Every structure is written in structure tokens, then in C-alpha cells.
């Protein structure tokens, strides 16, 4: 039991790496080097020999946004099966070897990217690296393992229907994005999953794991020289040709229902407000970071927390977040409350949205938020996983080597006017959808 809802911080880590502060001060910075590997892939090396460990993140354009249109869930299954055999080893032998050497190897499908994560003791780096390459270059996709993956994913889709929060998130996504790839269910649906075959996985895997959009970030007990050698020797075998997958379109053609209620027999209703947010390159990115933090960001008494939780005790947690993706990602406000408090909570959220869009934020409020955002930076980089993950995302979205260094200054430059401008644009009632999942009051 904890005082604050912290689940969403974990779930949205990719988002929060960037909606949270990052400063590289002169006094503290693990040395970061960037070089190009085979086929133009980008490589980041973060030196840190504090522990005999190495963490690797490999990002490549792919993920659920690139699922075949009629088969959402392919990317998720490719990720699920990433450690189910490779090279000469079938699933059982491969997993046994990973476990014996204490290597952790997995993949996950985000909206824009497929991310491979590997971590190992530095003494076993060579074994771990070659297993990662085998999984990528010579995957197995055995029918029996695939059937097991599908059975587990079907069970997890069924169980998600118990949870009002999951049901609401799926519905909201559909309404915000319509036919756009971001609107498809990332893990597929019960019907789409049943139509997927191993041939679909092979085709997708082959199209996605290509050098031109690959970004490799490695943090830990490994020298730059060693990393260069490992990368050049092994990645040269990866397909050099650009992928023929259709890039994520920038335009949105459809917007769904303004408001909907989904009946579910639970004592507490999930409420979601959401709309189209910003993309990763939006000039209002920093204004959005600050505005979101004031409205409903984590780790602080945001306006929504103050009004809905602290003053009235209507919820355990209320939050807002945005995902700045390759195309415009979602902006979402979420909370859960007992059936009888749904209308009051919706009204309070609306009131706060309007206030943000029509009135300037207070000077002290703005100053406090900036101090939080700029001051909490080192907390986001105090482990190898955080370092490799952050640099992987910086590389993937081409944010530049000075990105972390510039971040605090850019946050400090955000003015009250900037905040109102971005609030007017994003928190516009005409663009927001509301979904509730629970009992009809």
C-alpha cells in the first residue's frame, strides 16, 4: 500500500523520460560517446564501471504502429517471441542458456519502435551479445512456441476486460485516433490474434530489424573500443536495406464519439479524458512539459491532485500525461472514483482544463514546477537501465547529443503565455473525448 499511485510512472516510462527533467551538469555526467555503426546505425556508449554490469537497449522503427492494418498484435507477438530461440538453439535450449548465464533478453513493442533490452554481467557480455544477435538474425518462430504465446496473450486480453482502466484506455485510443495506426489496440484483439500466423511474424521481423533506423545504446562496464568492435563485427550481418513498412502518417482523418460510457459491474468507475497531443518535434514541447506537470504531472501536488484528491478525497490518484511520438501522440487525463462521484469528478476536471486554458498560471506555481523539473534530473539517470533507455530514446527521435544539457534551460524559458497557448490548443473541449467505464449511476 502506498500513499501515491505510482503505477503510471512505470507504465509510461518512455514518456516520462522526457516529460521529466534531465540535466547534465558539468559536475556530473557519465561520459557519453556517439558513433555510427554499420549501415548508418547510431550507437551511444555510456561509460559507467561502478558495477560489473552491462545494459543494452536497441531501438528500431517498428512496434505496434507498424502492425499490418487488419492484424493488430503482430508486433507484440514478435516481441513476445524474441527470446524463444535463435541460431542453433530451440526455445528450450535458448532459454536455458540465458538463465544459466544470468542474461536477461527481451523485446517490447511500443507505438513507434521495437525495443530490445539485454542485460548481463560484463564477464558474460560476449555470450549475451551473440545470443542477442542470434535472436535478431536467426529467430525460430516455432509453431508450438507461437501457440503458447497466443494462448497467453488471449488470456491476458480476457483478463484486461476485468479492469475498467484497461477497457477505458482502449476505448479512448480508438476514439482519439480512429483509423490512424495509433488507434489500433497494441496487443491486438481476440479476433485479430486468432488470425495471425507465424508467417506474419517472420515477415514483420524481417521488415523491422533493418540497420537504417537502428539505434543502439549501451551503458555500463564496457569500453568504447570493445563496443565498437562488437558492433562492427556483428551488426554488419543485419539487413542494410531500408524497410518497406509504411511510415506512420502525420494526418488524422477521423475523430470518434465525444463521450461514451461502457457498462461494467464494478464499484469504482474509470474516467478518461483524452485527445490528440503533440509529436516529438513540436515547438511547444517544453511548454507542454511544464503545463502537464502543473495540471496533473506525477511526483507533485498538481492542480488535479489538489482539487480532486486532497480537498475532496474523490480518488486515490488522478494524473495527466502526454506521449510525444513520431506523429502526434495522445494527451490523457485519468482517474478512478466510486460510482456516485463520477459526475462531480468530471466537472472538476473540466473546470481545471478551462482554468488552464483561460487564466495565467501563478508566478510562484510556475517557479516551483520549474524547480522540480530541473532539480529532479539526476533521479532519472541513476542506474544503467535508465541511462541506456534515455540515450536510446534520444537517438531514436534524433534529439541531439546536447539534448540533456539543454533541457533545463529550455524548461526555464517557458513563459505563462506559452503555457496558455499550449493549453488552449491541447485542452480544447472540442478536441477532447471522454470515456467512463463502470456502473451507470
Amino acid at each position, binding site marked *: *500500500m502506498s500513499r501515491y499511485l505510482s503505477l503510471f510512472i512505470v507504465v509510461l516510462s518512455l514518456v516520462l523520460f522526457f516529460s521529466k527533467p534531465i540535466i547534465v551538469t558539468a559536475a556530473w555526467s557519465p561520459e557519453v560517446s556517439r558513433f555510427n555503426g554499420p549501415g548508418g546505425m547510431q550507437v551511444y556508449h555510456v561509460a559507467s564501471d561502478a558495477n560489473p554490469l552491462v545494459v543494452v537497449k536497441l531501438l528500431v522503427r517498428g512496434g505496434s504502429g507498424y502492425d499490418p492494418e487488419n492484424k493488430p498484435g503482430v508486433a507484440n507477438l514478435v516481441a513476445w517471441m524474441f527470446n524463444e530461440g535463435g541460431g542453433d538453439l530451440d526455445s528450450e535450449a535458448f532459454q536455458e542458456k540465458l538463465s544459466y548465464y*544470468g542474461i536477461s533478453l527481451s523485446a517490447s513493442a511500443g507505438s513507434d519502435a521495437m525495443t530490445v533490452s539485454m542485460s548481463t554481467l560484463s564477464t558474460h557480455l560476449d555470450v549475451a551479445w551473440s545470443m542477442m544477435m542470434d535472436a535478431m538474425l536467426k529467430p525460430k518462430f516455432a509453431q508450438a512456441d507461437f501457440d503458447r504465446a497466443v494462448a497467453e496473450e488471449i488470456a491476458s486480453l480476457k483478463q484486461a476486460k476485468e479492469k475498467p482502466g484497461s477497457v477505458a484506455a482502449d476505448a479512448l485510443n480508438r476514439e482519439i485516433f480512429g483509423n490512424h495506426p495509433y488507434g489500433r489496440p497494441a496487443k491486438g484483439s481476440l479476433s485479430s490474434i486468432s488470425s495471425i500466423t507465424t508467417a506474419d511474424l517472420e515477415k514483420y521481423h524481417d521488415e523491422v530489424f533493418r540497420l537504417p533506423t537502428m539505434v543502439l545504446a549501451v551503458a555500463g562496464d564496457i569500453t568504447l573500443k570493445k563496443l565498437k568492435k562488437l558492433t562492427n563485427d556483428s551488426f554488419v550481418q543485419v539487413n542494410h536495406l531500408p524497410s518497406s513498412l509504411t511510415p506512420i502518417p502525420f494526418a488524422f482523418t477521423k475523430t470518434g464519439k465525444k463521450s461514451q460510457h461502457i457498462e461494467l459491474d464494478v464499484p469504482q468507475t474509470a474516467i478518461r479524458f483524452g485527445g490528440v497531443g503533440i509529436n516529438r518535434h513540436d515547438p511547444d514541447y517544453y511548454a507542454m512539459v511544464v503545463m502537464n506537470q502543473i495540471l496533473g504531472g506525477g511526483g507533485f501536488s498538481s492542480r488535479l491532485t489538489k482539487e480532486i484528491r486532497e480537498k475532496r478525497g474523490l480518488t486515490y490518484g488522478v494524473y495527466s500525461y502526454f506521449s510525444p511520438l513520431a506523429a502526434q501522440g495522445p494527451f490523457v487525463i485519468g482517474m478512478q472514483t466510486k460510482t456516485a462521484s463520477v459526475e462531480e469528478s468530471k466537472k472538476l476536471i473540466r473546470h481545471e482544463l478551462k482554468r488552464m486554458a483561460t487564466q495565467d498560471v501563478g508566478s510562484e506555481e510556475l517557479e516551483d514546477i520549474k524547480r522540480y523539473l530541473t532539480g*529532479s534530473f*539526476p533521479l532519472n539517470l541513476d542506474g544503467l537501465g535508465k541511462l541506456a533507455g534515455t540515450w536510446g530514446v534520444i537517438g531514436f527521435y534524433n534529439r541531439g547529443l546536447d539534448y540533456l544539457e539543454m533541457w533545463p534551460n529550455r524548461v526555464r524559458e517557458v513563459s505563462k503565455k506559452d503555457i496558455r497557448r499550449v493549453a488552449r490548443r491541447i485542452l480544447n473541449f472540442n478536441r477532447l473525448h471522454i470515456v467512463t467505464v463502470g456502473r451507470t449511476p
Partner: protein
Amino acid sequence: MDSSFVKYFKKYDRLLLCLSIIFFSSNVFALESKSFTLENGLQTVLVREPKAPVVVTQVWYRIGAVDELDGKTGLAHMLEHMMFQGTKKLAPSEFSKIVSRNGGNDNASTAHDYTNYWIKLSSDRLELALELEADRMQNLRLQESEFKSENLVVQEERRSRVENRPTARFFEKFRKTAYGDHPYSRPVIGLMDDVKGHTLADLQNWYKSHYAPDKAVLVVVGDIEFEHTEKLVEKHFSALKHSQSSKRKPLPALPVRQEPIRFDMQDDRATLPHYYAGFFVPTFMMDDVDEAFALELLSAILGGDSSSRIYRKLVVEDKLAISAGSGYSGLSMGGEMFSLSAVPGNGVEFEQLEKALFAQVDKIINQPISERELQRAKNSLITSHLFAQDSIDRIAWLIGRLSSNNSDWKLLVEEYPKRVQKVTSQQIKKVAARYLQINRAAIGTLHP
């Protein structure tokens, strides 16, 4: 690279040396630590881990849901919420605002055995964290208005965590069946009627009796200097008064059974069936830690990952289950449940699943465990352990968790690899035979 980033103390030197000879014949690695106790009884552990300019403080109170009374469940957790609602110096909610304004994060957690509070921030703000924790250790101001709304928050928390979730409701009831009248049978968050019935006076009594320096452990891990930190701890905590109340009541023994106790629940809102068998076992917090180490390995071999026996047999080979595994944390002060659990596949009966699970237990007891399998389990436990050391939060957590039970934290931090390495397959078979008997089990099934 800045010099502060170069390790002053190479804690892994010996480990690395050994690794290059034999896989994980690791012996010891040591954290740079210092322990002391103030005159008022505050036990303090400092660890210097300078790899990033960050520090975490954790205050562990030796008080939790086990110390509550029936009819007043959830009180430890309710007080945890109120610890952010103002002191003689601070207005309600100001605590977290100050932490945030200084670029920090904070939170707290309550469990059966303990209540824990943490602040993480830039290491040059360490004094602020200590000052805030010292202040609320003795100067909390409990007020009716804050309590009223925070109590509603906790009711919503209970709805989110338990009442909205079929599996959580199942486990709450299963726990009651398994533990009977033992304090571990209580839900930490409290039963809804109990939570609604809390009063300000209940909280005042709770705070007054259980929040004092001699009932707490302070852990500080991060980029710190010992001498300076020790001075700061003394400056802010030494004026706090020793408690007047008596020592914590020891926990009763866990129930012993001659035949399995069963709990079946039907729930229309559940979407998947669940099978769960729990066995009471000792932990690292008790006298015989050798058994705890053997149980840790038993769980890794039986059901720890997708190479484990239960997963391979039930999920991969025989397709009886969608998922299956075992669980053991070893961290409860009065013993805990070792679990075998599974989600049956389509059309598979619980009876068949149960048979298959216990067949794996029999196999452990009666057939050899190969050297390779044993070593694999050890390697995977030790590697996870080493990765956990990369997080100052995790280091602080383990130190606080053990110290608040008056156990030696070095056992699970520094000595862990060596102790895991020493476990034999005979010891594993012995604990399996001794504890994983079906007639001693509590067995729960959830039917959708």
C-alpha cells in the same frame, strides 16, 4: 570524467577475480557502510554509493498491520497517509511540496511488518530530507479536516486495489482462510467497514505509541560522506524522545495443519480461473536462514522462470496451464507462504492441475537435481541480486527491511552470493519434503 564518478572503493574486485576462474564462485563484496545508534535509540545505517549525485533516505518504523486490532484493520496504513498531512511546523500537504520544490520525490508504504517512508533527491539536499523526517517522527499534527478527506482517499484506494479486482478479492479471502486468526490474515489496507470506522483518536494513539526514534531505523544510501552525514543525523534526530510504550508483541506461531484447507470462490466478474497452493515456511528473518536459502533455490528450480520445471512441464510440454510458477520472498518476520500457482488451460480441471503441480514437488524430493540445473538456479538468483545493487533504492530497501526486524542486513546484501552458492541439492530436497506437503497446504481456487 569527473573524479567523483570513479569508484573510491572497488567493491567488486574480489568478485570479478573469482568470476574469471569459475562461474560465480563469488565470495564477498562489501558496501562502504557505517552503522551507529543514537542515544535515543535511533538505529542508523549509512552507505556511500557515489556513482550518481543522488541520495535516498528511508525511515522504517517497526509497526505494521500485524500490530492492529481486529475491527481496526488498516490503521497502520491510514496513519501512513496522514504522515504527509502537516506537523507543528508544516501545513497539510506541504511536506511533498517542499520535497518537489527541491527536485525530489517521496512516497511511503505499509505492510504487515513495517511502515516505510522515503525521500530521494539530489545529494546536496540531504539535510532537508533528514530535517523533514525528524520533524514528522515526533511533531505530527493530526487534524479532523485532513483526516476526513484522506480517509475517503483510502476508501478509494481500497476500491482500486481490491474491490474492483476479482483476483485481489479472491486473495484477500484466501488469505483469511489460510492464516485463520493469525495477524497475517488481515488485509494491510484494512476491511472497508474498519477503514470507514477509523477515528482521529485511533490515529493519535497509534502515532503516540509507535512513532519514536527507538522504534525506527534510518537508512541513507547515496553520494554521501559519513562524517558529515552522521553529524546531520545527530543534529536533527538526537533531540527526539525515546518512546514510553512497551516493546512490540511477538507474533503467534503460524497454524499447523494435518490436512489441506480449501477455499473455492466463484466470481462472475473474473475472466480467468486461478489455482493457488500455499505452504507456511520459514524466512530469512528467522533463526534458521539455511532453510530460507534452500527455499529460495527450490522456488527458482520449481517455478522461478520459463526454464523452471513447472513452466516447462505444465505450460510447454503438457499444455495444462496458460501460466504457472512458484513464489517465495523470504522477507516476512513471522514466516510466510511459499506458493505454487497456475492459470489452467481451456477445459483443464483444477484436480488435474493440482496433481501435475505436486508431481513436480515429488520429483524434486525423489529424483536427482542435476549439477547444471542447480548451478543455473544459483546463477540466475545471484545475477538478479547484483543487478539490484545498481539501484540505491533497492539497497536501502533491503537494509531497512532486515534491520527493522533486527536481522543483519549484510546477510542479504553482501553475503547473499556466497550463501546461495553454498546450498546443496540435499538441502533443497529436505525443505521440499518438509514443507511442500499437500496435507499442510492452504489451497484456493477462483472460478469465473
